[in-house]
């Protein structure tokens, strides 16, 4: 079947198999020459692509729930959306959630996803109390911070390359409302955005939309959104009207003029004085999930996301240089996001580090790759790195420079003979 990541680039032919029991999973990993697990396909590039993929969505049962402690045990194919639908009405929400709830628990762990509260709550692995991993030799190991800790640190953020994550036990957080009290602040340039992130350091959630095409004085102008869980006791979830992009738009629709125009309108739409409003969890955390197939906006050639992080001290300089290069190239990013991360964790390939992360969406076009190579150089020069879950073209040297604990990851992978059974187009490209 035809398979691709969320960026719809590349598109490959893959043999896809499903499993419903552990025995079936063990059989699958021994057929052919190995492959990679594939959940809901929201990684942007080739992390979950391989000539042979093991689809996890049929292994999607909730196994147990402790209503007093908010601990749920579930199979890897359960989606975050399903967890929220089931447990939010009971007063439990995810401790860490990324920008979409349409991902599997297995995928959330393999990418060690982060959310708007990384500065206070860390990555998704913080909620993982333990996981069950199916190893290349067919055995299943329980991994957590005490049992097989090396394997745990290699698997969280390990892009499915250490084994097949079968089950996870997750800690949820208690909430008393399905609403968020959101505050929106406009920042005239990058320096002001940085100041505001610092000022709102104690907010539970914070993220900024950034205008990547603004130049000069206005470079880095943004709209900062911070949020706190409301406590009004209203846990009823209102179904939100959604739309869909029914077919892929022609490639010329998103270009530097339309994007610049959109950015101008979006920036001006928000008042210059901070504004507070009550918004649903869905609208605050998952604004794009409501537009089904929004990735079709980028046209037939697809798109990629470029997400970088700089260490805090180098962030301002690094981001200014990146923004200058992007706006000079004229390649507009329809969506650009800025966020302040907290300290990095122990996982060997986990992406976040203490500093600022910047994310761009770029339509695939010939000129793009040269720009990204230039940006790579800036990222490496300032001690930063790129996010594997978004990546589709990162060269080996950029990867090696950005992940100092790569050797530890590789030695765990080698110890369990994983390279023979678990590999993706991305892992082959990066030589790991």
């Amino acid at each position: 079947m035809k398979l691709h990541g969320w960026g719809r680039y590349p598109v490959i032919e893959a043999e896809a198999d499903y499993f419903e029991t552990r025995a079936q999973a063990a059989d699958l990993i021994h057929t052919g020459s190995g492959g990679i697990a594939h959940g809901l396909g929201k990684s942007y590039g080739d992390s979950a692509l391989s000539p042979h993929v093991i689809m996890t969505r049929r292994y999607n049962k909730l196994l147990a729930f402790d209503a007093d402690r908010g601990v749920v045990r579930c199979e890897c194919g359960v989606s975050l959306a399903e967890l929220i639908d089931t447990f939010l009405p009971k007063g439990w929400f995810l401790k860490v959630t990324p920008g979409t709830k349409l991902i599997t628990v297995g995928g959330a762990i393999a990418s060690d996803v982060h959310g708007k509260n990384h500065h206070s709550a860390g990555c998704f692995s913080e909620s993982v109390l333990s996981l069950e991993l199916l190893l290349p030799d067919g055995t299943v190991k329980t991994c957590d911070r005490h049992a097989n800790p090396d394997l745990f640190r290699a698997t969280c953020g390990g892009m499915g390359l250490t084994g097949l994550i079968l089950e996870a036990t997750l800690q949820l957080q208690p909430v008393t409302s399905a609403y968020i009290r959101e505050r929106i602040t406009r920042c005239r340039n990058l320096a002001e955005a940085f100041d505001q992130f610092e000022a709102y350091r104690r907010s539970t959630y914070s993220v900024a939309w950034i205008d990547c095409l603004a130049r000069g004085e206005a470079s880095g102008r943004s709209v900062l959104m911070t949020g706190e869980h409301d406590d009004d006791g209203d846990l009823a979830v209102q179904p939100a009207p959604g739309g869909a992009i029914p077919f892929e738009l022609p490639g010329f629709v998103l270009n530097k003029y339309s994007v610049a125009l959109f950015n101008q309108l979006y920036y001006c739409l928000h008042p210059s004085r901070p504004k507070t409003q009550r918004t649903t969890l869905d609208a605050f955390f998952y604004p794009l999930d409501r537009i089904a197939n929004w990735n079709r906006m980028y046209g037939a050639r697809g798109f990629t996301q470029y997400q970088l992080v700089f260490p805090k001290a180098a962030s301002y300089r690094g981001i200014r240089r990146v923004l200058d290069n992007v706006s000079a190239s004229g390649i507009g990013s329809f969506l650009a996001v800025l966020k302040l991360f907290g300290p990095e964790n122990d996982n060997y390939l986990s992406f976040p580090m203490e500093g600022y992360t910047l994310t761009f969406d770029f339509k695939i076009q010939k000129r793009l790759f040269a720009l990204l190579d230039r940006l790579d150089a800036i990222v490496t020069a300032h001690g930063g790195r790129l996010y594997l879950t978004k990546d589709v073209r990162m060269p080996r040297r950029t990867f090696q420079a950005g992940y100092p604990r790569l050797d530890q990851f590789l030695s765990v992978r080698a110890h369990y003979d994983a390279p023979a059974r678990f590999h993706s187009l991305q892992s082959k490209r990066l030589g790991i």
Partner: protein
Amino acid sequence: MKLLILGANSDIAYAIANRFAQAKKADMVLASRNLDLLHKKARELMIRHGVDASAIEFDTGAYATHASLYHQLDPKPDVVVAAFGYFGTQARAQQDFEEARRIIETNFTGAVSILEIVAADFQKRGSGTIIGISSVAGDRGRQSNYIYGAAKSAFSTYLDGLRNRLARHGVHVMTVKPGFAHTKMTAGMDLPGPITASAEQVAGDIYTAWLTSKNTLYTRWFWRWIMAIIRAIPEPLFKRMQL
């Protein structure tokens, strides 16, 4: 309210269980062969919807076990769903009678065996609903799957007769005829995307039809018209086609 779902490991069956558990907080008895998988599904229904769910072993071909299986249930179910089926391989069934026999017995004979037992109980109680999942394939025999089609056709006619017998006793019998659906059973097939339903959509249609006591449901709705056209093609022409 309590449901007995026969063939509960099938995708449509599980989607039905979820729909009724969510909408009516109905308790569930799931019956099929793979008990481990069934127990997992029962537990999930309990976690998700707070209903009571249990798993029992059911083999369509073990006719002698059907009576005791049903009579051990206490309380008896209000709705029984016959969701078991076997598509088989037409080419193999043409060569190997065992395959043909399996298709016929799983889809038809096994259904008659268990449903007569259920019908007797419902008739005595004067209430209840039997939902039989047949197929559009039973509407006309065609060269690509006529053994399966014949078994489903027999099942549909059986359900017609059962409906006729039980109507005066306050018992409703609904025939469900799905067209193309994305399920375990059709996993290897290349189905046309736009007209292929998900198991959840089929379950949704079944739930809505149950609310209004529909007699025969085509899911999705347009299959009623597709099959009307297929049935209308004159035989001298149809016999030369390759549907």
